[in-house]
């Protein structure tokens, strides 16, 4: 169905020639590590991104959707991780939205009910406990119910031929997964081709017929699920070329600065236990959505802590982010654009945002001092910009990230919580950040790094703990780990 599809974003090659075919009535699993190109491929199929090269065919005819509406009209429906429903409306209204039949402009309620009940019947498989009331408000349903409504809406389209499910089980409990699988089987019975994207190999083993493995934007393996062992699939996923040398000085761990016991947040993490010492780099590996970011946010005081104990730099209990910063904890957000930086403000303002004390008398910020402080750290981290007053949003990703890190240095943090510190930045900046992390650890700071890029974690960390579905495994020295063992633990293969 897809042949030699390519896509590049600027200098990043997201897809370097991917081909795969899906058949009606079968479930095709698309497997790959974070950043392997799955999401790009799917957004091309769903019409959200146009491909640079390659061709798509649907049932023999060329398929070139320009918008998601186009794709939907052609019979390709996508169910995203973030659900796309109207929460204030009823289940039946959501299913019929955009294709209501009317008389004098008024919706024919009886017909709409019939349409919705038929669609729900297809996904709920007739089982009583999985039935969804057509007049329930969608916002009142649990995530699994909402997902079923969205699948029902896709299947209700008369010409639905391909159903794409992106990480459908990431927010579901075990029994809810069963409901979803029943719905998928029902879709297959209706001769619909299902594309199933997931990291979880045990799920793929249960539900999928065929599979394709992506790595670095290329197809590296394909076949029938029945004929392949999970360990072989993991083998295909790993083995990326490591283009980087990781600086690592000899470091001696000092006192414990961070100690979490059975820490639990609102949903994730649950029962996370870890210790972090001065002069140490501890890595948290895991898949996207495993709860790694939430763990950092709980420690920093951004997310609510529901249970467990926490002791950071001699302070017990939960504190607000302001108190954490005052004590010497710094958090680097994974989301540079909307949380990590105020992109409309200048470099100098961003850099000094978390500590304005030294910039003038109490309550006053003197622009001259702010500028001087910014210039010092821009030199230190070789941030390339015209001027400290330049807007942060105008800089490249790498330079933006360096500003965000420079803020932690400027506020003189002792404990660094770094969430995806090298996401979306160029190789040169990556190398500088690795070097900086090494320097920090050598000077007695403590660093906790979350990353989805395994070679990087294995390269820069002293110990690594793996998180899976909200649960944090034990931290082990990197010498005992390799990509395959970490990935096996993260995917539950």
């Amino acid at each position, binding site marked *: 169905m897809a042949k030699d599809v390519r896509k590049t974003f600027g200098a990043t090659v997201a897809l370097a020639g991917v081909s795969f075919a899906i058949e009606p009535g079968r479930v095709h699993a698309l497997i790959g590590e974070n950043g392997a190109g799955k999401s790009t491929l799917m957004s091309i199929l769903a019409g959200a991104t146009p491909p640079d090269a390659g061709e798509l065919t649907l049932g023999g005819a060329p398929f070139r959707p320009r918008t*998601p*509406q186009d794709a*939907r*009209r052609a019979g390709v429906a996508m169910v995203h991780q973030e659900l*796309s*429903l*109207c*929460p*204030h*409306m009823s289940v039946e*209204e959501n299913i019929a*939205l*955009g*294709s*209501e039949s*009317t008389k004098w*402009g*008024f*919706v024919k*309620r009886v017909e709409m009910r019939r349409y919705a009940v038929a669609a729900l019947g297809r996904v709920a498989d007739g089982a009583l406990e999985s039935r969804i009331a057509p007049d329930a408000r969608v916002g009142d349903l649990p995530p699994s119910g909402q997902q079923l409504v969205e699948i029902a*809406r896709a299947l209700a389209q008369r010409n639905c031929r391909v159903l794409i499910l992106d990480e459908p089980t990431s927010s579901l409990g075990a029994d809810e997964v069963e409901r979803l699988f029943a719905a998928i089987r029902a879709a297959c019975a209706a001769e619909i081709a299902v594309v199933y994207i997931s990291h979880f190999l045990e799920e793929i083993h249960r539900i999928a017929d065929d599979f394709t493995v992506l790595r670095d934007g290329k197809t590296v393996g394909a076949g029938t699920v029945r004929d392949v062992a999970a360990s072989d699939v993991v083998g295909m996923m790993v083995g990326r070329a490591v283009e980087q040398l990781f600086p690592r000085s000899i470091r001696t761990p000092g006192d414990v600065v961070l100690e979490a016991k059975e820490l639990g947040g609102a949903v994730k993490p649950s029962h996370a236990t870890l210790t972090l010492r001065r002069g140490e780099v501890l890595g948290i590996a895991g898949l996207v959505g495993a709860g790694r970011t939430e763990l950092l946010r709980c420690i920093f005081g951004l997310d609510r802590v529901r249970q467990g104990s926490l002791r950071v730099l001699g302070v017990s209990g939960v504190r607000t982010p302001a108190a954490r910063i005052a004590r010497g904890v710094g958090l680097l957000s994974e989301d540079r654009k909307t949380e990590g930086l105020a992109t409309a403000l200048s470099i100098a303002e961003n850099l000094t945002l978390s500590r304005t004390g030294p910039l003038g008398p109490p309550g006053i910020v003197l622009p001259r001092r702010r500028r001087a402080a910014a210039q010092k750290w821009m030199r230190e981290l070789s941030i390339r910009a015209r001027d400290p007053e330049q807007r942060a949003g105008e800089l490249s990703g790498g330079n933006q990230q360096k500003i965000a890190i420079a803020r932690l240095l400027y506020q003189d943090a002792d404990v660094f919580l770094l969430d995806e510190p090298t996401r979306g930045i160029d190789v040169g900046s990556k190398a500088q950040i690795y070097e900086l992390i090494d320097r920090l650890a050598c000077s007695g700071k403590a660093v906790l790094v979350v990353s989805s890029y395994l070679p990087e974690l294995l390269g820069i960390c002293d110990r690594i703990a793996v998180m899976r579905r909200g649960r944090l495994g034990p931290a082990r020295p990197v010498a005992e780990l390799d990509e395959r063992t970490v990935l096996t633990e993260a995917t539950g293969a």
Partner: protein
Amino acid sequence: MSARPGGEHAWRRFFAFPWFGPLAALVLVYLLFALLVPETFARSTNLVTMARQTVVVGIAAVGMTMVIISGGIDLSVGSSVALATVVIARALNGGAGPLTAVALGVAVSAAAGLVVGAIVAFGRITPFVVSLGAMTILRGAAKGLAREQKIDADARGLDALLGVLPDDASWMIFPPGVWIFLVLAAVFVAILHYARFGRHVVAVGSNERTARLCGVRVEAVKIGVYALAGLLAGLAGVMEFATLTVGDPTDSVGLELEVIAAAVIGGASLLGGEGSIVGSVVGAFLMTVIKTGSTHLGLPNWVEEVVTGVIIVTAVALDRLRHRRP
């Protein structure tokens, strides 16, 4: 589960209506004033008076509710009402019949709403800014058209819309304007709940991207909403003219805030997707009752203003609580 599942279910649903809270508040406040000043406030003629005073805000609130449900806001209502009174007065003075004058006034306001909607939909400018601009533009246009002064006009029977009923028509209980308001509200309740257009308004306000994905013509819906809100503001202008019998370009300054307050008390969420026309009508009545009751009690004006403000915030806070259930 229950022995009478139907009965219990029906009660639950009744409590769950977004306008249930405001209605309870309205009844309570009314009873309170009726107890405090039984000899004047509780009289039936006072009820008619209060209904008359609610018509302008009420009609405009019906349109505002649709706009807010669609995720927008319309700040130009007050100016639109003033412009309509001026247009009607000038048309009457120019020799037009009352029906023609009314049609002209309403058409001007509806056209203004249409333009606001088109700019919001195609210009992708936030409704707050577009309607803020429209508020000033329409106010200026009204002053220009009226040459900066009030225009006296012979109302040619239009004043009967909200006037005291003559004895031979006392069977109507309320003057025709009040009935027009109530019928309009009922019609728009039906449109919002049962017409495809109405459901698409809710869909756009609830999740615009989803609505677009499902083939809803989001731009057309937005234009329609603002045009209808303009049309209703024009009708509110007709009622305002019926009360004043002059075209006054400086009239109804700040009316939009009263109208928004009525919608918000009635359960509309400024984030879109939520709101109730019945609730907004109740909200408009609630504000009139507080105003009138305070006057009858002899309370100074400022007390009434403080109370209204407290009610607005309390209504929204209670609504949040209702939504937070487990």
